């Protein structure tokens, strides 16, 4: 003690030579929170440049005067200010930060929520960690306002549909830019090259994610310039923290199966209904050439096949991940590994993922920091033809449709155990009328479809401290994805039949490197003026190199691999393309006394795909913020006990879009081909030498508030995205013979507007019982304001069927549908309306020329058709969506209930057209309510065999349009944390068990499988179409989180 005093004394002496005596002394103490000392916390003397960091034990010492204010701060904690008194010891206790104090990740940096003027949503990694999905995007539904994340269907690994503040492009991508630890990652539909869905976001282990930030407005996103029109999602992975050595182990097992399957006819019902159809068609079953007949199996039992049972199952999944993290002031590390094995609800649809991640940050000297991250993932998705991946909805081998369309009066096998097969479809059993669909059992057993990813995401950075507040960072990142697709389609039935068996292997190398150099300056010019500025540059090289082949004509049933015996080979999946993005950007943030905030972002981007004179684009965003609660006048009006935070914000900016654009979009090309055995060359692409960026003018107005000391916090916002220069495939008259009948040009414009509200409340905090709730809702309105010079409608197909339309004055992708008026009680015929309102009816049993008659007088008239009679109906896009998240805690128990809702839109239930189709397809049980006798009032027309018109198979009809409102209890999780006393005995930091149910309940009036549907995946112009897609899966899981 004496020695120490002596040391202090001599120090004070030494100091006194420079400063006036006895004014300054060393104050020391410990910064801690509820769980103990905090290493690495900042302690500064307010209004000075004097600051230190706490050591491993949370200790600090700093020079201060009596009356100085020490401000302690730590990531995620509320700043605490303590006045220095006479005592030399100042212990500071930090508390969990309020929402406004949290640190959010922004483009090329971080900011405190309080200082953010832009619209940024933050989702903590913990919130999604245990949700039993394949990729983190699937867990984001309802998590944040302005961010609509929906699942297209229950096929394993299917990419979620993500829309940030509406649909922001028509031809290019409306999928946000995904940036993982600063490097834009590969994503998008182009990776779905076979029917096994491939979503590279599934290559990120959810347990490795620290936080997800969504940049929604121009102020926050403009720093990403040309790629920010559809918003930006920043993924920040976990890093080591000084001092806190932790081990986490997460493990779970899940069971998944489809729900809400639609009942279809059994064998006898099917036989009767189809024979009734033949009778009504005037060609009754005759026992010799026509008709449907049941059969018995070898045991004399009626063959009555429930195809659902052969196609769906209860899939079992296991997921384990382990991580170690820790470090000290100089070295921080994080190491993790993960292993996921997931069976989907479809038989033979399995996803397997192994991940390894290592992050290291090393302070080398006071001015030099080095660090980086290495992530490797191997994932494999074994899929089947489901018909539920975008672009495959009418696949005649699609298992989702075969499950309900195949005749139930035949079985998968013959009595001798062989497959029940006809040359191109299933064997017809006793039916005399041939069946149509292939034998799905043969397909499931023999076809193999898979993709395998080897995904390396890695970065290395050098950080230089150049001067106080002036830092330089150079980051080199790579994102290399190797995708191997392998298909084998069997020779006897299904898609492989026409090729007599085909094996297709393709290898796809997606490589990207990104080099970023950023200079960052932070300064408090005086106590009241805070300035931060950033300038930087970025180069990003991307290349896709894909090649493969298809071997056809399998020589022996034994072979089912590409390397086996086949008689022909053709190329498949070739692609070689590259692009380059060069960028210069900057940002200035200024605030006056944390009261008035100004920020400006700018970026200049050059992109290789655009025309030579239009490669460069300038983008910017600016924002203003006003923190009213710092104003004296406001404090005088409203007590800070009532309103503790109130900040108004406004931003405007212009960002661009090039996402999803072909790498050589502006160029004209001739392609090589083959004529017999000769090579050819032909004009195959008309370019446009004026092609340039799509631009999005984004306005954001909002306010953030905290009431009653943050018991209630929230955010209200308004947004408007005015998008100009949309790149459209401008249609050309077909007789011009231009390849694809269209040329890209910047011609369209579109607007998205809406309001957002987020409200969070600590509803109850009474002793051991806690209830926190968070609710968010977003409205969205889309308006297409211009298309090409003629404002030509763009009709958008769901593979083979034109379902949607993009028309000026309408919301994008509204339905384009022929109006129907129920079933005529007099004769059982479906009533359609011509464009002029004339009611007409259809009778499939009449001669072709007289099938269409007027309802009024029975006179023959023309067929109803889409081109002449369809009307635009909608909206197809939800007009509102949101989430409601409740967390209850009682002693060691925690219960989380997440609700996702969406509505205001319609869904085109095209699946229903198939379920009621009167060809040899099986039907849903609702056809039992068919019209039979004059006077019957029903919505199911008279059954006429072969009728593919009355129920919507030949054109979309309004009878199949339904409201799409739903509310879904997306996840319920009940957890139990072992008490601290027990943990201490076991030497554990935490141990939590949980049970969870994903997609627990759905509330809707929609009659199909599920109103949360997108048969067209992330396609911009054809949302809310349900066409032969799989239902959703419900998953129950049990797991634990263990921490050391």
């Amino acid at each position, binding site marked *: 003690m004496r020695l120490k005093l002596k040391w202090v004394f001599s120090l004070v002496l030494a100091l006194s030579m420079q400063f006036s005596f006895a004014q300054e002394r060393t104050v020391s103490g410990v910064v801690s929170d509820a769980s103990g000392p905090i290493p690495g916390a900042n302690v500064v003397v307010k209004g000075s440049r004097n600051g230190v960091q706490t050591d491993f034990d949370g200790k600090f010492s700093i020079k201060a005067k009596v009356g100085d204010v020490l401000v302690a701060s730590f990531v995620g904690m509320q700043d605490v200010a303590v006045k220095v008194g006479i005592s030399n010891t100042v212990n500071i206790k930090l508390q969990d930060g309020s929402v406004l104090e949290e640190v959010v990740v922004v483009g090329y940096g971080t900011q405190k929520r309080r200082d953010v003027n832009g619209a940024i949503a933050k989702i903590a990694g913990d919130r999604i960690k245990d949700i039993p999905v394949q990729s983190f995007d699937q867990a984001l539904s309802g998590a944040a306002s302005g961010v609509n994340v929906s699942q297209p269907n229950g096929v394993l690994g299917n990419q979620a549909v993500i829309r940030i503040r509406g649909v922001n492009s028509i031809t290019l991508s409306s999928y946000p830019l995904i940036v993982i630890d600063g490097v834009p990652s590969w994503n998008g539909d182009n990776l779905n090259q076979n029917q096994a869905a491939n979503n590279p976001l599934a290559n990120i282990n959810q347990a490795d994610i620290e936080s997800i930030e969504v940049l929604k407005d121009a102020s926050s996103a403009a720093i990403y310039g040309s790629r920010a029109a559809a918003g930006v999602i920043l993924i920040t992975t976990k890093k080591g923290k000084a001092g806190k050595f932790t081990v986490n182990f997460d493990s779970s097992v899940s069971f998944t199966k489809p729900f809400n399957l639609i009942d279809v006819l059994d064998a006898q019902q099917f036989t009767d209904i189809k024979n009734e159809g033949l009778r009504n068609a005037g060609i009754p079953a005759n026992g010799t050439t026509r008709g449907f007949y049941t059969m018995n199996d070898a045991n004399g039992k009626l063959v009555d096949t429930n195809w659902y049972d052969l196609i769906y199952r209860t899939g079992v999944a296991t997921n384990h991940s382990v991580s170690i993290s820790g470090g000290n002031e100089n070295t921080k590390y994080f190491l993790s590994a993960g292993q996921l094995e997931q069976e989907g609800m479809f038989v033979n649809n399995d996803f397997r993922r192994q991940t390894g991640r290592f992050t290291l940050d090393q302070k080398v000297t006071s001015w030099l920091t080095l660090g980086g991250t290495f992530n490797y993932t191997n994932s494999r998705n074994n899929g089947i033809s489901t018909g539920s991946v975008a672009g495959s909805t009418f696949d005649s081998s699609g298992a989702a449709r075969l499950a309900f369309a195949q005749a139930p009066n035949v079985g998968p096998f013959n009595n001798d155990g062989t497959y029940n097969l006809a040359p191109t479809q299933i064997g017809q059993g006793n039916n005399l009328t041939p069946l149509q669909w292939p034998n799905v059992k043969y397909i499931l057993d023999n076809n193999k479809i898979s993709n395998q990813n080897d995904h390396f995401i890695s970065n290395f950075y050098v950080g230089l401290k150049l001067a106080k507040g002036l830092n330089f960072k150079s980051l080199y990142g790579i994102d290399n994805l190797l995708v191997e697709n392998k298909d084998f389609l069997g020779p006897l039935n299904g898609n492989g039949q026409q090729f007599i068996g085909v094996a297709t292997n393709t290898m796809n190398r997606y490589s990207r490197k990104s080099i970023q150099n950023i200079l960052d300056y932070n300064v408090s010019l005086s106590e009241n003026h805070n300035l931060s500025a950033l300038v930087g540059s970025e180069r990003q090289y991307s290349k896709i190199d894909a090649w493969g082949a298809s071997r056809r004509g399998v020589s022996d049933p034994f072979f089912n691999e590409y390397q086996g015996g086949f008689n022909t080979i053709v190329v498949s999946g070739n692609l070689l393309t590259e692009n380059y993005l*060069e960028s210069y950007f900057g940002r200035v943030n200024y605030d006056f006394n944390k009261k008035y905030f100004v920020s400006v972002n700018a970026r200049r981007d050059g992109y290789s795909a655009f025309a030579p004179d239009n490669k460069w684009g300038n983008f910017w965003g600016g924002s203003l913020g006003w923190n009213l609660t710092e104003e004296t006048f406001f404090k005088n009006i409203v007590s800070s006990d009532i309103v503790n935070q109130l900040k108004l914000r406004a931003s405007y900016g212009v960002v661009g879009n090039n996402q999803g654009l072909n790498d050589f979009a502006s160029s004209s090309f001739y392609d090589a081909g083959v004529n017999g055995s000769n090579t050819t060359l032909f004009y195959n692409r008309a370019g446009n030498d004026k092609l340039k960026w799509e631009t999005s003018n984004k306005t954001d107005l909002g306010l953030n508030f905290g009431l009653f000391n943050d018991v209630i916090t929230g955010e209200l916002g308004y947004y408007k995205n005015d998008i100009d220069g949309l790149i459209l495939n401008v249609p050309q008259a077909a007789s011009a013979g231009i390849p694809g009948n269209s040329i890209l040009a910047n011609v369209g414009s579109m607007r998205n507007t809406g309001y957002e509200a987020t409200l969070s409340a600590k509803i109850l905090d009474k002793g051991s019982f806690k209830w926190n709730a968070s609710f968010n809702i977003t409205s969205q309105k889309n308006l297409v304001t211009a298309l090409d010079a003629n404002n030509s409608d763009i009709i958008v197909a769901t593979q083979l069927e034109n379902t949607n339309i993009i028309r000026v004055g309408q919301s994008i992708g509204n339905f384009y549908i022929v109006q129907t008026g129920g079933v005529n009680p007099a004769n059982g015929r479906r009533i359609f309306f011509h464009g002029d309102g004339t009611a007409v009816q259809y009778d499939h049993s009449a001669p072709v020329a007289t099938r269409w008659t007027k309802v009024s007088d029975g006179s023959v008239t023309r067929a109803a058709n889409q081109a002449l009679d369809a009307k635009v109906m909608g909206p197809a896009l939800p007009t509102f969506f949101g989430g409601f998240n409740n967390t209850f805690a009682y002693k060691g128990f925690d219960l989380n209930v997440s609700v996702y809702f969406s509505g205001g839109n319609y869904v085109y239930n095209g699946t229903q057209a198939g379920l009621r189709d009167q060809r040899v397809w099986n039907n849903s049980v609702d056809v039992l309510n068919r019209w039979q006798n004059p006077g019957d009032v029903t919505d199911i027309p008279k059954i006429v065999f072969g009728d593919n018109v009355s129920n919507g198979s030949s054109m979309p009809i309004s009878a199949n349009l339904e409201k799409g409102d739903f509310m879904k209890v997306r996840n319920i999780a009940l957890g139990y944390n072992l008490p601290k006393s027990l943990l201490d005995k076991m030497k554990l930091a935490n141990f939590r068990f949980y049970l969870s149910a994903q997609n627990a309940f759905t509330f809707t009036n929609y009659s199909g499988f599920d109103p949360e549907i997108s048969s067209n995946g992330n396609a911009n112009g054809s949302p809310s179409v349900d066409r032969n897609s799989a239902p959703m899966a419900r998953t129950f899981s049990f797991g634990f989180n263990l921490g050391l």
Partner: protein
Amino acid sequence: MKNLYLTLIAAILIVSCSDTEALNPVNQTRISDANAFATPQRIEQLVLGIYGGVKVGNFYGGRFFNYQDVRGPEFINERNNGVTNLFTWSFGVQSATNEVQNLWGAAYTAINRSNIVISGLETATVSAALKTRYLAEARFLRALSYYSLVTLYAKPYTQDNGASPGLPLRLLPETSSGNSNLVRSSVADIYNQVIDDLNFAELNLPLTNGLAINNTSRAHRNTAIALKTRVYLSMGKYPEVVTEGNKIVSATAPFTATSGVPNALASSIGTVFARATTAENVFSFAYSSNDTPGTQNSLVFYYNSTSNGGSEYSLAPTGIVSNTGWKTTDARRSFNVVTGGKTWVHKWTSPQADPDFVPVIRYSEVLLNLSEALVRSSNSLDARAIQLLNAVRGRSDATTVFTSASFTNVQALLDQIAIERRIELLGEGFSSPDIMRLKQNFPAKGLAPLVITTDTQYLWPIPLNELLYNKLAVQNPGH
């Protein structure tokens, strides 16, 4: 000082990254339009690329034949599948029906390829001889394309001497936007252009292409003449058919072409399909495992009932298959295979993945064109016409020999020639054009209706994707 250096380095790193080369990448897999005509090899390939355009699945790769066949009385749709030409068969096509839009699009894409080559050749560095030959090939294929379109989308020339609206006649390359609007030229204008192109082709195509495969799969002089006999027949210009036919058919049996490629009937009908390059195969489109018409397009898919095919269309029992004069011993009956109680045409048998050639012009057609024209132009029981008929019949059925005594009048002979065409060319795309050029009705078959010459469905509609963007095009009446 250290900080100053570091700052300097940082600043340099930020600004020193411009990479102009990467901003202007060269596509490694496609040829830029700037140098597509740069070498003689490329020009040769561009000419072959026009063939590639005509022979796609939506055009001569299979679907076009199927459209022309199933409108006629010979086939029954077995699949009730809208994707595989159900609406064509049942006369229910609309302007947005796939086949209506796809055929138009494919043919005009091929026409544009022809026009691009014709225009590009003007400045191309290739010998004058090759230039005229290439021009002739391009114009031959353009003629074939326009002729094919005009038989479906416009009124037959014979109804009103071509006065009705025909097609937008595009003779210049289209590579940029802004030229969508173009009126439909009259049917006569289209035919005149077709004849003009074929006359040019006749004058400038080589007499022979050497190898048999090249004589079958690339146009030579006799190819252009043979096509002219078909075109003039469609126009009802019978003396012209005779003139053209006489250029490539000898005066007396055995009938052969006496100059150019020595086209003649093969000794057996069994040898003229698959990948035949016999003297009879005046013009075929060649395919290989690397060059297929695509899924649900090929002829084997439509007609064949084995696992190589799709069993899409069987022979209507009421069609030509019921003709009693078509003897069971006739070699052409061997193509009619019965499976599942139905009869199927098995002229095409190879797998879709490695398909047969598509025979566009066979010499037997030329003989029948000439035979019919001789009768019609002379309005008599022309002896040579009967010999030509016998040449085709006798090749497959030696037991039937027609004489002038076989026919009570001229019409009886014409009827027999028509029957011979239906037998000989069954499944080869002649059914609809033969009915239309003779102003006949389409008979009902199965559930498909009778369609008379004044019915809307007698013609295909102009496709919707033409009408929407070509504001000067008018729809056919009724559609």
